[in-house]
């Protein structure tokens, strides 16, 4: 029972004020509930901020704090675009770079120039909550100095892809990002298993460009080839994409040659190559430009890349294992 200072309150008046208090509290709660449901996560996050803010350390070692899951995302690297979409947040993309082309829905988004030299103004105009881009871009510092949150990630091999998926999962607030990685990894294993044992240990030469530039064991493609159980004639010691002497290929006499369609024409016309066993027996995998893009990009379509290579290996080198 409340007594005021004078102690003269009657029982009836105290009951009235209690009721008033109850009504007041009820109205207050209703109002709060309205705010809580209609408002964005902002209010809830403002109230519950320390628990939901993400702190992501990107490939530069910089820790970026995101107060809540971003709703407007700009990606400036094709592999990062693919990861965002593979994690199911494609609808949050508001802008991509010129080279992002998968999935097809991103082609409708505003294109902001190349990944290494994007259109700064265009990026800022889109008011992104976060920008995902390559570490080797000059624009990183420029965007940060304009107050934009940048998470710099650049995958070059399978381990990088796993890490990037984890980081982007943190950025997006996706609960089980590793599930995506498990799917991809499983897909690669399945591709490896699909190759008949007689054909494993095929010796492969993978040419990535006119030069000739080969994909060595240390490259992403080399990694995929290794996971599939085939041997690369270019050893790890030569680096990821060495410019090799064409004579080396003749010497090494690979069982299978893999090449992008753009670089493929008239391999037999190269001096000394007409006698290559692989060319004479037609053991040549020529990948279309779209497939080549999948093969060289370390990203969520790794499993698809592995399948492409596995299919070709199975088809072309049947029964020719040394």
């Amino acid at each position, binding site marked *: 029972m409340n007594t005021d200072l004078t102690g003269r309150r009657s029982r009836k008046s105290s009951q009235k004020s209690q009721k008033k208090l109850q009504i007041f509290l009820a109205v207050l709660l209703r109002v709060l509930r309205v705010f809580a449901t209609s408002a964005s996560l902002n209010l809830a996050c403002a109230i519950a901020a320390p628990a939901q803010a993400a702190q992501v350390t990107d490939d530069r070692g910089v820790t970026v704090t995101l107060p809540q899951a971003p709703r407007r995302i700009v990606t400036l690297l094709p592999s990062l675009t693919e990861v965002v979409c593979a994690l199911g947040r494609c609808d949050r993309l508001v802008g991509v770079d010129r080279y992002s082309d998968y999935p097809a829905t991103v082609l409708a988004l505003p294109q902001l120039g190349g990944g290494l030299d994007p259109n700064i103004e265009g990026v800022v105009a889109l008011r992104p909550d976060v920008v995902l881009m390559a570490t080797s871009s000059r624009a990183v510092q420029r965007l940060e100095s304009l107050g934009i949150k940048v998470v710099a990630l650049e995958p070059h091999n399978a381990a990088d892809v796993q890490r990037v998926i984890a980081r982007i999962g943190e950025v997006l607030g996706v609960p089980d990002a590793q599930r995506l990685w498990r799917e991809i990894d499983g897909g690669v294993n399945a591709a490896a298993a699909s190759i008949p044992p007689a054909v494993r240990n095929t010796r492969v030469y993978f040419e990535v460009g006119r030069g000739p530039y080969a994909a060595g064991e240390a490259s992403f493609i080399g990694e995929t080839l290794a996971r599939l159980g085939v041997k690369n004639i270019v050893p790890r010691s030569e680096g990821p994409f060495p410019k*090799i002497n064409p004579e*080396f290929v003749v010497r090494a006499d690979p069982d299978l040659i893999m090449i992008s369609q753009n670089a493929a024409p008239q391999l037999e016309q190269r001096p000394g190559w007409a006698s290559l066993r692989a060319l004479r027996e037609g053991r040549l995998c020529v990948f279309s430009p779209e497939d080549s893009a999948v093969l060289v990009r370390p990203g969520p379509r790794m499993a698809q890349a592995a399948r492409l290579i596995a299919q070709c290996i199975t088809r072309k080198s049947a029964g020719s294992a040394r």
Partner: protein
Amino acid sequence: MSAAISVSISGRARRPGWLLAVGLLVLAAALLLLGMDVGSRGFEDMWRSRNDPVASQILWDIRVPRTLGAWLSGALLGLAGAIAQGLFRNPLADPYLLGSASGAALGLAIALALLGASPFAGEWVLRVGFTGAAFAGAVVGVLLTLVLAQGVQHTMRLLLAGVIVGVVLGAARDLVTLAAPETLQGLQAFMLGSTGYVGWNACAIMSAVLAPGLVVAWATGRGLDALALGESTAASLGLPLHAMRVALVAVLALATGAAVAQTGLIAFVGLASPHLVRSAVRTTHGALVFLSALMGGVLLMAADVLARWLVAPQELPVGVLTAVLGGSYLLWLMYRRSGVARRAP
């Protein structure tokens, strides 16, 4: 200044040109033998494996045409460089002055880009070939320069037009690589130069351009000497200057185009070869052209053998090595000259 030069020039023994020619030919033969032993395993004695069919195939199908091709390409560039310096009376002139380099690079870029664009375009590119595209680009570049300069009459206009065409075609090439970034790697390999794709066919083509080119350049040698004394003097001597210029520009374009199409844009050989020759002997233009070709051949061969050897089985870009070899020698010459001048009374 003239005192310094006269001291250093008298230091240059008055060796006759033919002695240098013999020396360069001997050096070329030695480099050819060396080139036959250098490949994807570094240096290996091929005489020992002469009975191995794979090794002998590698030798005759790959290494010999490649080394010979390096000599031929270097000779073409040396010839073109001597012509350019004689025609423009400018010691800094090089064969790429008239837009041939940027034209070739653009031609190759377009070919690389078209290959992926459509099957129809791709077929055409295959028929023409990458070397064909680069050669066509080089010739088109020179023709554009000639059109812009309105003929071969005025060398200043030719030079200016060549610079403009070079810049514009270079920008066009940049646009192509922006639109089709997958062409970048192939284009870069081309711009750095390599003899990796040179076979016997390429050697035959280059020889077919080198021989008449040498003949034409030698025949106009006396005309170039007269031109060195001044345009009005040469005209007053009744020389057919216009016909001479047309012939020389044609040889310049074809020689540069042929070399660039087969081995890419190799810098410095065309610029340095005439200077290297002049640092050893004093000759008239007729002999200079021959010696410059021989010198260019030796320079490129040496660079090519080193490019294959140093990081085998990888290859260094030949253009880097020609600059290092030729440039170091010229730097040493300059240092020696200025040193002599300081000591001269």
